[in-house]
């Protein structure tokens, strides 16, 4: 299924845990340190409404390339700080691995989805990133906030807004 951010509530409601998505358009990168700052930021200078946040800390780009290897990092570390961003309109997050019950509840309340990209598939995912533009906190290096333009970026719906999960551990 193709998906293009920004996401509205209607689109998000249609997504089901286990769906494979090919995302084209804009993703915003942020991980641990950037989350600490983003939740305090009153005007980040870009639209959080409908945005998809990608938890990634890439390798440095080789000459002539926009970005290096770019797979997802473990999402559970961002669970607490992600909730205030969801209440400000963020509608999707891409990471890897299971997350807390609180986060899953917040997804239902704010109508947002958690997507996973294949962990460790940094080369495959980087090959689908066409452009990278710095937005905020460049002092954080690979942890800074960037805008990524992606094409057919492969992800899976891990937690949908209806409380379903892709993870084997949630099925038993």
């Amino acid at each position, binding site marked *: 299924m193709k998906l293009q951010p920004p996401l509205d509530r209607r689109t998000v409601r249609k997504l089901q845990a286990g769906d*494979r998505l090919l995302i084209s358009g804009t993703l915003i990168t942020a991980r641990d340190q950037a989350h600490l700052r983003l939740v305090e930021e009153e005007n980040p200078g870009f639209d959080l409404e409908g945005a998809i946040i990608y938890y990634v*800390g890439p390798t440095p780009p080789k000459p002539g390339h926009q970005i290096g290897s770019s*797979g997802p990092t473990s999402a559970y570390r961002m669970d607490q700080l992600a909730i205030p961003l969801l209440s400000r309109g963020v509608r999707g997050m891409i990471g890897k691995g299971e997350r807390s019950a609180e986060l899953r509840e917040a997804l239902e309340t704010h109508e947002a989805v958690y997507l996973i990209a*294949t962990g*460790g598939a940094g080369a495959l995912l980087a090959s689908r990133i066409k452009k990278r533009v710095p937005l905020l906190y460049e002092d954080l290096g690979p942890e800074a906030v960037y805008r990524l333009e992606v094409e057919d970026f492969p992800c*899976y719906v891990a937690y949908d807004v209806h409380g379903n999960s892709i993870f084997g551990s949630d099925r038993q």
Partner: protein
Amino acid sequence: MRTIEKKIFQEAIKQALIEMNHELSPAFISRLASAKETETGTVSKTILDDILQNHEIARKGTFPLCQDTGMVVVFADVGQEVYFSFDFESTLNEAVAEAYAEGYLRKSIVDDPIHRRNSETNTPAITHIRLVPGDQLRLRIAAKGGGSENMSTVRMLKPNDGLEGVRQETLKAIKNAGGRPCPPLIVGIGLGGNLEKSALLAKEAILRDIDDKNPDPELAQFEQQLETEINELDVGPMGVGGETTCLAVKVNTFPTHIAMLPFALNLQCHAARHREVVL
């Protein structure tokens, strides 16, 4: 005495690190490929396919396999008749720094566990140096990611817990870890010794050749049985369920104290970046 030249030593380490971050061992890839064939879940099969495709792209040399290019671990078995005309540790760290700069690999090491400033060089490496007979230097080098290391554990079991205790602890840990350590995994188990020895055994276990067979028949059978049971946990590739949670289980043991059964579990993610170099 046999002298090992600084340049040869450094080049060998650099080359190994850059190579392993772009290409996995053929034996490991062939296990992944056969797992993809037998995997019956739809999503889990696609994820295994993503991992194989990722390897194909990384092999071309533009993008490392994973963005977490790891903390460097080196087991150095040093022949007693080897002479180094340089400082071993600092030279090794220079080689690591050069590999991570020239290879455009991510620098993931912070200089202090509390203050956490990036060392900007991906050093220091963790070294385990051992003196052995002979005039050769055997280096087993790994670039180990944080995700799977974070799900690893050491526990002091009771002697009477035996292999059954080991089995239960392992199954519990892998189930709880779910998708976080990036399965499919190589599961390394260290048994015996003391606290730190068990952890070293577990790390050496994940470095074993994936196709080797444990020389102890009882342990060989235990490894097989545990592999089957882990794959019945329905954790699956990246935790999405399925039959491919681990590709191998390796158990390394050492004598221990009458009152102890140290148990360490070291998980290796599917970005299993290891190389062995003999100089």
